[in-house]
């Protein structure tokens, strides 16, 4: 079915970085074909999808705004994925971070203190971490599969948010609609570029990417966790604690997802509603993989994913295509990437890829 693959003597570094580019290239070609099949001018489609969303400063600020939560969440997930801890419930942790931050904002709604925002940030991180601590505890204590428990908790978090905004946290002046009050200025993140919606959360995300890079590539613990992920037996032999690996993975992932949730309610939303869940937690999983579980890669992958979202919106407005086309592109990209990855460790016999 396929040309035979042959194992490389050593993993190819060129392909390690080349395969995402190959995947992006294949996705673009796939996109052109798709536009053609749908009876649209492929080049026009291409421009609308990939260029128009970011043709001005505002567009770029929106791209960064959308990429910010992806960067935050994906970095946290990468820590776990490297260690073979599969937290796929970041969406729920994101929501609980939003809940934690909102709790603080509501508690101090009449305060002008400059401490409200930092408190919200901490509460957001704790909210996400607490939600992730449940699968961690169940995993380490009862050996329960974290993929499934973290995922089930997403639904529970959504319903919890729904209960809060319909019940105790409902805006008393809001005609019983499911929303909290709009946050005061003391509870809103400062805007980075005037006239846009980009907040300093973007800077936090950059700091997290850098911190994540140092942790994953330069720290002893990061090394231990990676060993634990790649060779469980070796890690056990070396005495690395698998329990600690699980806890660190999930708490990091949860806290960062929680911060992303905080940035959402204290940023573009400005309140908590029952529509706080916008799929960032799931999209970040794709981002983490496209970014090679590496913060530098995650940075670019987040931008690319954000662009695919915005391209989907544009495609609907200007090409008359359903917005789900964005998801099709996202799935295609990940498939191509995962497929292209084989060339890191293998090469095609008779192929000229190998140097």
């Amino acid at each position, binding site marked *: 079915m396929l040309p035979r693959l042959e194992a490389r003597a050593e993993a190819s570094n060129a392909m390690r970085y080349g395969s995402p580019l190959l995947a992006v290239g294949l996705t673009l070609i796939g996109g052109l074909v798709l536009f053609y099949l749908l009876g649209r001018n492929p080049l026009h489609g291409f421009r609308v999808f990939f260029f128009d969303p970011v043709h001005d400063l505002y567009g770029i600020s929106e791209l960064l705004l959308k990429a910010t939560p992806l960067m935050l969440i994906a970095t946290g997930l990468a820590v776990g994925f490297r260690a073979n801890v599969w937290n796929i419930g970041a969406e729920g942790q994101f929501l609980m971070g939003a809940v934690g931050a909102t709790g603080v904002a509501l508690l101090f709604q009449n305060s002008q203190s400059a401490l409200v925002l930092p408190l919200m940030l901490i509460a957001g991180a704790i909210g996400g971490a607490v939600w992730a601590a449940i699968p961690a505890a169940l995993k380490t204590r009862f050996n329960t599969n974290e993929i499934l428990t973290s995922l089930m908790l997403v639904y529970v978090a959504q319903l919890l948010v729904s209960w809060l905004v319909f019940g105790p946290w409902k805006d008393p002046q809001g005609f*019983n609609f499911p929303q909290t009050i709009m946050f005061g200025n003391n509870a809103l993140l400062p805007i980075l570029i005037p006239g846009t919606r980009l907040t300093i959360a973007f800077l936090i995300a950059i700091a997290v990417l850098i911190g994540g890079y140092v942790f994953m590539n330069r720290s002893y613990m990061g090394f231990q966790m990676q060993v634990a992920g790649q060779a469980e037996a070796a890690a056990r032999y070396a005495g690395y604690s698998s329990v600690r690996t699980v806890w660190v993975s999930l708490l990091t992932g949860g806290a960062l997802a929680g911060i992303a949730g905080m940035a959402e309610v204290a940023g573009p939303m400005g309140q908590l509603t029952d529509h706080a869940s916008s799929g960032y937690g799931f999209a970040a999983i794709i981002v983490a993989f496209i970014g090679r579980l590496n913060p530098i890669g995650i940075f670019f992958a987040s931008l690319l994913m954000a662009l695919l979202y915005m391209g989907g919106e544009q495609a609907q407005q200007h090409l008359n295509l359903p917005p789900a086309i964005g998801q099709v592109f996202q799935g295609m990209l990940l498939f191509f990437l995962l497929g292209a990855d084989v060339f890191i460790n293998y090469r095609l016999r008779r192929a000229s890829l190998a140097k």
Partner: protein
Amino acid sequence: MTSRRTAVKTLGVALGGTALPLASMRSAFAAEPVKVGFVYISPISDAGWTYQHELGRREMVKALGDKVQTKVVENVPEGPDAERVFRELAQSGHKIVFGTSFGYMNYMVKVAQQFPNNDFEHCTGYKTGKNLGIYNGRFYQGRYLCGLVAGKMTKSNIIGFVAAFPIPEVVMAINSFIRGARAVNPKAEMRVIWANTWYDPGKERAAAEALVAQGADVLTHHTDSTVVAQFAEQKGVWVCSYHSDMRKYAPTKQLTASEEIWGGYYTKTIGKVVDGTWKPDNTWGGIKEGMIDIAPLNPAVPADVKAMVLQAKEDIGSGKRHPFEGPVVDQAGKTVVPKGQNITDDALSKMDYYVEGVAGKLPKS
């Protein structure tokens, strides 16, 4: 509610105020069509809330012809992404932009402030601005009429309601329906299942099934799919559809449907934009304004019932009758609105209690 000022009078206001002399001049010379944007919460499909707005848009396009050029963006979630969509529509020259879901409210408020030369109209919200108007339908009027039919047609005296979320609009619908039913059948009782979703056909169906199994022989719903109507047809129980006439899905079992009719409103409102006389307004239109209607009654409905329902429709339209005319008694037996008075619009739009005849407890807030 709806204030309709004469064109001449508002023209002066529009030109005198901050509102866009440039655009009105442009349209005055009838050079190019006015660009109109519509933002919908869900896919258009062919029944339901968004579909009704789409029908309204089509009717408006038919009426105004080449004076307008419309753009539709569907399936826009009620999160921060909505703000970008509104902004883009405004920026790309859409003179007026309609947003048809509650959750767009705060985003529309922001965008309206950023684009003072564009007009915005928000459906179901409560915040207005210099260039942001709101409009909504008195859905409860149609619900009341459905209740009258259901009250006459039920044999088990149990009416089942598949509800999405306990927002006032839905609570109002439940109360209005059972008040209609009990006006003609004091034994009628309403059972409500909160599905906690606007759209999960599997769950909506399961909820309908649970209601029928517990004796409901008339179903109605405030969720967005057609599945309750389809289920009723299959199970052979009556259904009063919501949003759209769903006869296609329940050809023999639909008693009637409470429908929103937006065409007249859109034609009138956009007509004002074309003339340059648009002003933000707060429209809460019902039967009188032609914004709420019911679908043709099922042939199985006896002639006297039909006459009674049509009479009620006329009376509600003329203001002679109000679905919440006193005494309005809540579930606990407390009189909320005394005899001889009608409920106020304000009280109606904040409704957070069940009236008598509804079984179970309203999820606590």
